[in-house]
């Protein structure tokens, strides 16, 4: 007997479950962080080279657009950090039933987003 299950791939009907959202954001944030490596190394180099370089970096990061980019990258780092801790916990068999994975996904999103908001408030 074949079961009659609702089966459709309409993106307006199907919805990614919360752990799936955390998973795809883990990938997206990781890719973003990878692309930011040369920029961060350049900023580190300039800021350590001289007092003038440090002042230049500080001034450059103070601009409106730079702050926005900084906030975006900070979110990426925070999300990747917390989602990564969640995966490490799951590797050790913590939080592996359905309800727990949903709750821990919610906790990851709550932690990364609230810290991003806090950072945003501090930056502006």
């Amino acid at each position, binding site marked *: 007997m074949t079961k009659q299950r609702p089966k459709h791939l309409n993106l307006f009907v199907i919805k990614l479950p919360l752990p799936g959202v955390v998973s795809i954001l883990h990938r997206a944030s*990781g890719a973003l*962080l990878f692309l930011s490596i040369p920029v961060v190394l350049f900023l580190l180099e300039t800021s350590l080279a001289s007092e003038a370089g440090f002042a230049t970096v500080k001034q450059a990061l103070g601009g409106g657009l730079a702050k926005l980019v900084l906030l975006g990258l900070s979110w990426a780092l925070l999300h990747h950090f917390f989602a990564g801790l969640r995966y*490490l916990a799951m590797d050790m068999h913590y939080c592996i039933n359905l309800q727990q994975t949903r709750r821990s996904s919610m906790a990851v999103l709550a932690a990364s987003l609230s810290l991003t908001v806090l950072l945003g408030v501090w930056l502006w």
Partner: protein
Amino acid sequence: MVNRIVTGSHYGVRDWLMQRITAVVMALYLLVIAFFLLTHQPLHYADWHNFFACRTVRLATILFLLSLFLHTWVGVRDILMDYLKPVSIRLTAEVLTILALLAYAAWSIQILWGIK
């Protein structure tokens, strides 16, 4: 016949384990950096420079960065394997990623040990 693909998976636990171990190293380092930044506000050049002039910090930082590059390699390779299917394109992207990460590693050493 065994069909081995050059750009395929390595069918092993080594990369998986490497990604976890490097993640732990990076998490610990990031906590230290976060603590330093939180306790040195507003940040001045002297504090920033003296922090990285310390040999322990330099070594910890290079371990963090090398962990980052190994971790990045596993993650980016996973992404490339999922989205780039033709072997030639995938291999090119993988080689470029490796070369970039090796260059970043050399640059990192130059930055940290070039501090006067």
